[in-house]
């Protein structure tokens, strides 16, 4: 397993009058080389969960295993350096993640800390920027003078530059325009498929990741409401909707059509193209009646 949570609880300001619980006995398993989406209403503990992946937060109860590191609530935390190299974390607000005065220095910060030479780190910075589709001219600019979208991309580049095995991103598409959102999702999917990275993305727009994600974790009130494959998610959609999760329209539509045409046992088609193809097949098989039904769908 890449990441395992065993009955993990976390409370902010634990042991004081301001204690506020954020995670409650969370059980979680994420296999290496998978693409996982994490969704849930605001305040459900998603960001807190993410910060356990690289040991930024230490659980107040339970045990977290990430790669070969174990963080136990009762024991002193081990040295996190190696873990932090292997687990890259992109925070929710990029402007809070950047701290150097040029983009280049910011992206080089991680690689330099992990023992790369300056020349190598600069190479990495250029490479990471090009992955995100940013021009090299931003390298010498102050990150705080960039637009929100560019800042977000620089923040992601600064983490990709460390070449981590696990990439965890907290709502990375929040401030991006639609085109950049689609590009980022595709980039993450490429890293996952071609380089075997484990990718974990917290998102409020499930539909963007549905074509790429193998597994989903749904959080509610600090607990995991659901963990499983995308197919299982589609089957559980009615239950999750009842629990207050906004279910993407494509899932609702598929479930409706599946009920109507008896496709429940099949792999769900969640993109317009695949759904259209599948429907055409079904309708062709049904013959003449298909034309009328097709218009209805």
């Amino acid at each position: 397993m890449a990441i395992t949570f065993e009955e993990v609880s976390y409370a902010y300001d634990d042991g004081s009058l301001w204690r506020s619980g954020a995670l409650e006995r969370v059980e979680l398993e994420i296999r290496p080389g998978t693409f996982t989406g994490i969704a849930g209403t605001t305040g459900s503990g998603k960001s807190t969960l993410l910060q356990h992946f690289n040991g930024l937060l230490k659980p107040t109860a339970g045990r977290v295993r990430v790669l070969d590191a174990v963080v136990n609530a009762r024991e002193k935390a081990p040295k996190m350096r190696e873990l932090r190299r292997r687990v890259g974390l992109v925070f929710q607000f990029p402007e809070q993640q950047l701290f150097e005065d040029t983009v280049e220095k910011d992206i080089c910060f991680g690689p330099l800390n992990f023992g790369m030479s300056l020349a190598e780190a600069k190479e990495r910075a250029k490479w990471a920027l090009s992955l995100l589709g940013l021009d090299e001219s931003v390298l010498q600019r102050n990150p705080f003078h960039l637009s929100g979208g560019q800042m977000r991309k620089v923040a992601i580049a600064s983490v990709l530059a460390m070449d981590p095995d696990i990439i965890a991103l907290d709502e990375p598409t929040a401030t991006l325009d639609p085109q950049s959102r689609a590009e980022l999702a595709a980039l993450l999917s490429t890293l996952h498929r071609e380089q075997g990275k484990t990718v974990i993305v917290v998102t409020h727009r499930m539909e963007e990741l549905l074509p790429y994600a193998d597994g989903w974790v749904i959080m509610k009130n600090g607990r995991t409401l659901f963990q499983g494959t995308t197919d299982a998610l589609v089957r559980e959609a009615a239950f999750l909707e009842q629990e207050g999760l906004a279910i993407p329209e494509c899932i609702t539509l598929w479930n409706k059509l599946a009920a109507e045409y008896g496709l429940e046992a099949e792999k769900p088609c969640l993109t317009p193209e695949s759904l259209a193809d599948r429907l055409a097949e079904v309708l062709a098989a049904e013959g003449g009646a298909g034309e009328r039904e097709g218009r209805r769908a």
Partner: protein
Amino acid sequence: MRGKLLIGRSIDTGSWVHGVDPRAKLTAMLLYLIAIVAVGSWPALGVAAVFSLAYMTATKIPLNYYVRAAKPLWVLMVFIFAVQCFTVTEGTVLWQIGSWTLYSGGVSLGLISASRMALLVSFTAILTFTTTPGLLNQGMAGVLKPLEAIGISAQRLTLMMSIALRFIPTILDESQKIVKAQAARGADLRELPWKEKGRMLVSLLVPVTVGAFRRAEELVLSMESRGFQIGAPRSEYHLLVWKRRDTWFVLSFAILAAGVLAYRFLM
């Protein structure tokens, strides 16, 4: 970082001290300050300590929170104690090393001064522990009102203070976020050698300061866009009503201050 810092955070336990008019509390704190400054002997210190403990218990806030409030100043207290030991030359000789002599009067005065400091810091924490920042500001505005007669705008002063107080936790949070961002990319403050630690803390200053300015600018815009104008009349959300209890509260502090002063200068 936030968990350790207690300045400016209120703790609601619903005790009667929480309900005292903020203007009364501010006046009382001023009287307490006078009393503590006038404490110069063991009996006076004892009375002040008992008085303080009684009020601390009345707030129903665990006493260790008051201890924690005074903790950050322990270096200063040790320093005050040491200075008294070095400079006072009264009482019997306790110890002699070379040309330097330690007198009993120095130790006694040093202990009194350090305890005074501890009492002052932990006791004045009652003010912020039992009053929400909003009420505190309103109280401040009320207390400063007489100054308007000589042309100082109380509103301007309290606005400045409320923003400063309001921003302490925000700026702390912000620096913590940058510390986290640095840790996530391999520079964990806890794991670095001391020299590196210092360098990292300095590198923290620039983004935090820049962030504070950016926030201040945003705040000004958001206040102006909601029609805030300094000096313009505003309605209050909570109206402060002075009750008899508030008078008694202030009176108890006045008696303490008068008693300590009388003991110091008349006896």
